[in-house]
């Protein structure tokens, strides 16, 4: 993207399409690599243990991933703008409890989900305003809101908890039922994923997020409404964390003041493993979703082949480093190739 600015106007028409196609291919390859690792892993496990991909097994794999995928999609949108939202775990926890309290009082399940999403939007708005107006690093701001929201949660919830007995049966059933092997939660998540992917790819607002992440200064000069876009990213991220809270409640049927504690780190790992660069401007929500699916699937694969769960954390860490290493190498190669092409074009033009 930055290269195009340097190239002479005349060739700008065909050069960017070529390099964008090349970039596209690299990014697709990156996502394909995660997908390949995932498929090989699942296939190997299936060969080892034929129960693994049974009807129940597939359903469990999808259910295990849904909540993380949702939050990772929101996080990816924020990370693409070269920011981060560390408060997602706290938002998930507090909105899950809010939905649970409402349901405990005999509320309507659909309205409970909306309450959770609304609460998420509210906290997303707060984060977005602090980051975009305050001009302070997102890492610090959202670390602050992480603690604040968790603190409010602890004071409000205290030692209370929501158990499966407090929830209407229909809501709990929604947490694990589905159309044959596809759980309702997975369908909902897929819809969110496709919508977010489409927005990022085909809408001006979505493209602006990438521009912001590539070079905030250039984006501002090019007339991108910086505050509005950042606010949008945070609001979407908060809303999805809130939605994830409601789904957490449906799936686990149990929420207390510690729910979602430390979840932000898992989410960030999933996003990075899925190829969304922490330096902003590149990656897709599909990649983030694949990263989330890969991380949760590892946690399912290890127990079903009888490997002790103490390995899970170490393996997650190795994957993370591997993903960052691959990203770095790819970035260097891409930059090199683009530079070479630009030079070739320029000399071809001069000749």
């Amino acid at each position, binding site marked *: 993207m930055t290269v195009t600015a340097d190239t002479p106007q005349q060739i700008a028409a065909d050069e960017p399409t070529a390099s964008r196609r090349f970039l596209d291919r690299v990014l697709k390859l990156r996502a394909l690599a995660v997908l390949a690792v995932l498929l090989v892993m699942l296939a190997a496990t299936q060969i080892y*243990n034929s*129960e*693994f991909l*049974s*009807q*129940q*097994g597939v359903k*469990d794999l999808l259910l*295990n991933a849904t909540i993380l995928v949702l939050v990772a999609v929101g996080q990816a949108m924020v990370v693409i703008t070269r920011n981060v939202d560390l408060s997602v775990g706290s938002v998930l926890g507090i909105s899950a409890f809010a939905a649970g309290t409402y349901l405990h009082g005999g509320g309507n399940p659909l309205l409970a989900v909306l309450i959770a999403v609304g609460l998420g939007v509210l906290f997303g708005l707060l984060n977005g305003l602090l980051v975009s107006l305050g001009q302070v690093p997102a890492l610090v701001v959202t670390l602050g809101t992480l603690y604040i929201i968790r603190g409010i949660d*602890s004071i409000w919830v*205290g*030692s*209370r*908890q929501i*158990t*499966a*007995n407090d*929830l209407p049966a229909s809501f*709990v*059933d929604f*947490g*694990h*039922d589905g159309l044959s092997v596809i759980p309702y939660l997975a369908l909902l998540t897929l819809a969110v994923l496709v919508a977010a992917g489409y927005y990022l790819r085909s809408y001006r607002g979505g493209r602006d997020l990438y521009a912001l992440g590539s070079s905030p200064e250039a984006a501002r000069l090019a007339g991108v409404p910086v505050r509005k876009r950042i606010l949008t990213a945070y609001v979407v991220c908060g809303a999805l964390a809130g939605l994830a809270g409601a789904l957490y409640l449906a*799936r*686990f*049927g*149990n929420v*207390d*003041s510690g729910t979602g504690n430390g979840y932000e780190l898992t989410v960030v790992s999933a996003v990075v493993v899925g190829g969304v660069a922490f330096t902003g401007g590149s990656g897709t929500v599909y990649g983030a979703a694949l990263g989330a699916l890969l991380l*949760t699937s590892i*946690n*399912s694969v*290890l*127990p*079903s*082949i*009888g490997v*002790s*769960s*103490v390995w*899970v954390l170490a393996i997650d860490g190795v994957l993370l480093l591997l993903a960052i290493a691959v990203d770095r190498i790819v970035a260097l190669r891409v930059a090199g190739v683009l530079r070479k092409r630009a030079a070739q074009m320029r000399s071809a033009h001069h000749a």
Partner: protein
Amino acid sequence: MSRTLTRRATVVVAVTAAVALGATACGGTTKNSSKDSGGGAKATASADPNAATKKGLTVAFLPKQVNNPYFTIADGGGKQALDALGSSYKEVGTSSGTDTAGQVSYVNTLTQQQVDAIAVSAQDPGALCTSLNQARKNGIKVVTYDSDTKPECRDLFVSQASSEDLGRTEVQLLAEQIGYKGEIAILSAAQTATNQNTWIDFMKDELKDPKYKDVKLVKVAYGNDDAQQSFQQTQGLLQQYPNLKGIISPTTVGIKAAAQYLAGSKYKGKVKLTGLGTPNDMRAYVKNGTVDAFELWDPAKLGSLASYAAVALASGQISGAEGQSFKAGDMGSYTIGKDGVVVLGKPTVFTKDNIDQFKF
């Protein structure tokens, strides 16, 4: 040094004597206090079982973590007992379950406030020792409940149930449900959890009994007391051992996660689940047929017993030595065992017939 300690002890005695009712109780306390302050942190054998129960004492509860549902119930039981005895209750503590330094400073504060007794659930067996012994030198009685310190740092430990009872009864519960036949697994908390590992050792020992010859323990899995991980470990167990008949989960987080997973899967009702859980957590699963029976001690009774023990100590009726006994209201009489341990009794089994009587 020893003179200031004695003087401080005398002050404590004077204060307690001022509120005490019976003259005999006074004598008993004086004797114990002076001995304590001189000899340091060693339980003295002399106690007057007939001493009157003092009123107007202050017993402070210091749970592992405030706002933790389990400790809220336990401490609530402690308050009820103290109300009945005419003494007053207070609760202080850290909001994190692993803030040992915070617990130490709470003990020091309570020592300065000169409460009569401290009931503490220790986050760490050794870290509280110095400050607890300091408190005891100042005449404060120290009772541990739920989680013990080293025996030399407290007067009494009120244990929820003996590890042996807990381990063995869980196997008995599950074996009954699966007809003494088939493969079983254990879903524990962390691999390093001391409590759980002790119970699991007793489970394995119980399984050596010939009546369990057809019951086979195939695996111990660890869900790290995390809902998602416990879900996935349960899924792994069921995939790895398709013939699994039952699961024992000796952790309240593990059992409710496993129950929630089973309730929403094809295994509901086919794979039996038992272990340690709270009635509130498990009510839905017992009613929908996922779980037949599970067990736990009653945390309210645990807190209540800690209160009775603390008051009996402060009244001089017991000193913490083996063989002494004290009355604990309508729970009856308890006898102190080896190392100053008082055991609450066998765990309560909850089924769909009795679960609605328990609200915790």
